[in-house]
C-alpha cells in the first residue's frame, strides 16, 4: 500500500519550467534544509582528510589544504582502545562475524515463520503472532537482564554466538511481519494447486514460495544489515572487549579520555563505521525506503 504508492513516484504531468515566487520559495527551503542534512557528512569527510595542525588552525567547514589519508590508515590499523592498538579493523571484522550469521539465522527463522503464519495457521498461531508484535514495543531494558541469565546458562554469554541469538530474537517481530504479509499477498490458488499436487510444508516453501519471494528477502536483508551493523546496546552488553562490534569500539576510541584527541582520526573512524550502512542505503535506494515504510506503516 504505502510502499507501492511511493514506488509510483510523483504523478501527473512533468512540472513546467516556471520560476514563480512560490517555486523559488519551495526550492530555496529545500536547498537550505539540504545543507543541514549534508553538513555533518561533509564536515566528517573534510576533517578526516586534514592533518592535526590544520585542524588546530580552526574552521571545520573549510576544505583541506593538503589532503592526507593518514588519519584513515591510523583509524583502521593503529587507533587505541585501552591497551589494544590494532585499530578499528578488529571491530569491523567482529561486526562482520556477527552480521553474517545473524542475518542468515534471523531471516531463515522469520521467513519460515511468516510462511507458517500465512499459509499453515494452527490454533493459537495468531495469538503468538500478536504477542510477538506487541513485544516489539517493549523497551529492551526490561528484557536485557533475563537474557544475560539465559545466555550464561547456555554458555554463550560474551561470545559472538550469544549476540547472534539476541539479534535473531529481536529481529523476529518486524521480519516475521514482513514475510507474513508478503506470503499472504501471494495468490492462494498457487498454494492450493501445490497442495493438490501433493507438496507438503517444506516442499511448497522451498519450491514455490522461496523462488517467488526474492524482493522481500532483499528488503529483509537491507533492514537487518543496517539494524545489526548499527546496534550498540546489545553489543556493549552481550560481548566482551575482544568481541566488541564496530560501533562499540568506535565509541571507545573516540570517547577515550587518555591521550591527545586526534579529531581527524576520530572522524575517519566514524566514517569507516558508517560506510557499510551508507553503501547499503545508496545502493538499494527505493528498496530501503520500501523496507522501512513496510516496517513502519504497519508496525
Amino acid at each position: 500500500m504505502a510502499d507501492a504508492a511511493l514506488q509510483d513516484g510523483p504523478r501527473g504531468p512533468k512540472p513546467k519550467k516556471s520560476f514563480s515566487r512560490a517555486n523559488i520559495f519551495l526550492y530555496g527551503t529545500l536547498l537550505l534544509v539540504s545543507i543541514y542534512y549534508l553538513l555533518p557528512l561533509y564536515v566528517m569527510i573534510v576533517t578526516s582528510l586534514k592533518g592535526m595542525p590544520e585542524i588546530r588552525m580552526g574552521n571545520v567547514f573549510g576544505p583541506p589544504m593538503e589532503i592526507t589519508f593518514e588519519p584513515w590508515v591510523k583509524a583502521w590499523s593503529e587507533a587505541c582502545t585501552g591497551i589494544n592498538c590494532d585499530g578499528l579493523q578488529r571491530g569491523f571484522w567482529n561486526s562482520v562475524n556477527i552480521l553474517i550469521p545473524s542475518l542468515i539465522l534471523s531471516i531463515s527463522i522469520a521467513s519460515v515463520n511468516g510462511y507458517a503464519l500465512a499459509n499453515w495457521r494452527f490454533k493459537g498461531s495468531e495469538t503468538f503472532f500478536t504477542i510477538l508484535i506487541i513485544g516489539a514495543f517493549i523497551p529492551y531494558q526490561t528484557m536485557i537482564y533475563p537474557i544475560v541469565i539465559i545466555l550464561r546458562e547456555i554458555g554463550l554469554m560474551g561470545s559472538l554466538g550469544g549476540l547472534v541469538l539476541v539479534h535473531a530474537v529481536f529481529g523476529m517481530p518486524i521480519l516475521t511481519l514482513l514475510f507474513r504479509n508478503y506470503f499472504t499477498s501471494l495468490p492462494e490458488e498457487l498454494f492450493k494447486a501445490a497442495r493438490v499436487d501433493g507438496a507438503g510444508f517444506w516442499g511448497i516453501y522451498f519450491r514455490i514460495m522461496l523462488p517467488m519471494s526474492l524482493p522481500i528477502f532483499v528488503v529483509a536483508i537491507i533492514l537487518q544489515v543496517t539494524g545489526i551493523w548499527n546496534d550498540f546496546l546489545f553489543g556493549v552488553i552481550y560481548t566482551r572487549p575482544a568481541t566488541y562490534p564496530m560501533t562499540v569500539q568506535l565509541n571507545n576510541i573516540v570517547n577515550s579520555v587518555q591521550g591527545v584527541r586526534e579529531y581527524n582520526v576520530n572522524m575517519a573512524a566514524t566514517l569507516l563505521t558508517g560506510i557499510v550502512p551508507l553503501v547499503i542505503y545508496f545502493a538499494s535506494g527505493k528498496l530501503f525506503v520500501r523496507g522501512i515504510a513496510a516496517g513502519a506503516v504497519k508496525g
Partner: protein
Amino acid sequence: MDAAKRPNKLFRNLNSKIASIPMILTVLVVFVGGTTWTVVHSFTNSRLLPRLDFVGLDQYERLWSSSRWMISIQNLAIYGICSLILTLVIGFALAACLDRKIRGEAVFRTIFLYPFALSFVVTGLAWQWILNPDFGMQSVIRDFGWTSFAFDPLNNPDIVMYGILIAGIWQGSGFIMVVMLAGLRGIDEDIWKAARVDGIPTWKTYVVIIIPMMRPIFVTALVLIASGIIKLYDLVVAQTNGGPGLASEVPAKYVINYMFQAQNLGQGFAASTMMLVSVIIILIPWAYLEFGGKKNG
C-alpha cells in the same frame, strides 16, 4: 488448513508447529517470561545478583527520590516533547514540499533520508565534533568577527539536551518524512482538483482537508517517534555520555548503569519497569483507537 476440524489435533499441521517453535520460544521465554521476571525482581532488593528477597515498593521509593532519576525523566520530557513536535513538523513540511511535483525529488529524498541509515553512535560523534566549542561551529562563527558568539550546548548543562536534540532530529526526521510522503501519495488526486475548483488556497487545503485525512499516518508517526524517544540511549552515550555532570542522563541509561556498573540490580529493574509502564501508557490509547472499534483491523 484448519487444524480444529480434523482428527489427531496435536499432530495435524505438525511441520508448521515445528517451524513456529522459535517464535513461540521467543514470545514465551523472552517477551513474556523476561518481562515478567524483570517486573517481579523489581520488588526485591537484588544487588550484585538477582535474589527473590521481596521488599515491596522500596526500590520504587528510592527511584523516585533519586535526583539522578528525576533529572533523567526531565531530560527525556524535554527531549521527547521537542523531538515529537519538531520531527512531526519537519517531517510533514518536507514531505509536503516533495509532493509539490518538484524536480529532483529523488535527490532531495535521498539527502533527507541518508542519516537514518547511520547509527546513533556515528550521529552522536559527528555532531559532537561539529558542536565542539574550540574547533567547531562556535569557533568558525567567532572567526567571522562575531567574537561574543556562544553556542556550546554539549558543555552547558542548561542546554545540553538541545545539543542532543539537534543530532536526534537530524537522524530521524527523514524517516518520518518518508512515512508522511507515503501518506500524501495515498491521497486521491481528485481531492486536490476539487479544492482547486473551489478556490481554496494550497496552505488551507493542507490544514483543513489533507491533514485531517492523514490522521492515521500522523498517529503511526507519533507512535514511531514516541517509541524511539523512550529508547534514547546510544546517542547520549556517544555525544555526551550523560555529561556535563548528570545534565544529559536519560532513563534508558540509568537502567544500564544501575544493572551493569553500579551493581544495584533492583534499582535497574525498577527503572526499567517504569519505562515499560510509560510505553504501556502510550500504547494502550493508540491500540484502542486503532483496533478497538473494528475487528480484523
